[in-house]
């Protein structure tokens, strides 16, 4: 496989996965806050 082609496809999915990871971490943080609110 052409290395530029591989780099472009890999970069696309790295960017998408990085963004999805930020969403997951925001969701985890939010879930913790909801639990704390329920306790209080």
């Amino acid at each position, binding site marked *: 496989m052409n290395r530029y082609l591989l*780099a*472009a*496809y890999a*970069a*696309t999915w790295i*960017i998408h996965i990085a*963004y999805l990871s930020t*969403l997951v971490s925001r969701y985890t943080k939010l879930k913790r806050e909801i639990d704390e*609110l329920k306790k209080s």
Partner: protein
Amino acid sequence: MKLAFPILGVLTAILLSYALYMALVVAPTEQTMGDVQRIFYYHVPSAWTAFILFTINFVASIVYLVRRKPAADIVALVSAEVGVVFCTIVLVTGPIWARPVWGIWWTWDMRLTSTLVLWLIYVSYLVLRRFSASGETPVLAAALAIFGALCVPFVYFSIWFFRTQHPQPVMGGGGSIDPRMLHVLLINWLAFSCFAFLVCWSRYRLEKVQRDVEQAHAMASLGQSSRSTR
């Protein structure tokens, strides 16, 4: 309704895998550029998806300015955020494609520069939304979004009106494409559009819950302060 999201998620994953297979295996190899031309099947659909998301941001911003509905504000925020992700991919895959084909990573021609400016406008939109605590932030952001959206047709038509290093459009504007390549391109676009829709959907739900939690925090602190004054 609860099952709709996982079902759509699985279907989108299948579609993305099929689109990848079509791009790498089924699409014919371009005669002059060779295999590196297959970057086209990720670069162009990402650009089109970003343009659509910025257009949604534009419409939602106008709706927010007219009706002040929080849902329109959330749609505007979400579409800008996901649009920036897709626009980042365009700005990353473009130079990777340009290097072996043009011999350079970047050139300050009209299409490339206007795309970078578009990206910077929407990044500043997100920075404004993230760091401004003013109650008027959604209104200011909506105004900025309208300005940003004016750049979208400029970016798209820049290769029609200016002599640029960037190739002519593949559809309309004098460009032409092999029907088999067009078929693969449209499948990839469909796959990325479905993916973008799903990401927007999750981000919308996340933002809505986040606002509810902020409201609950505010109510809780109001309750505490009223108890302490009694």
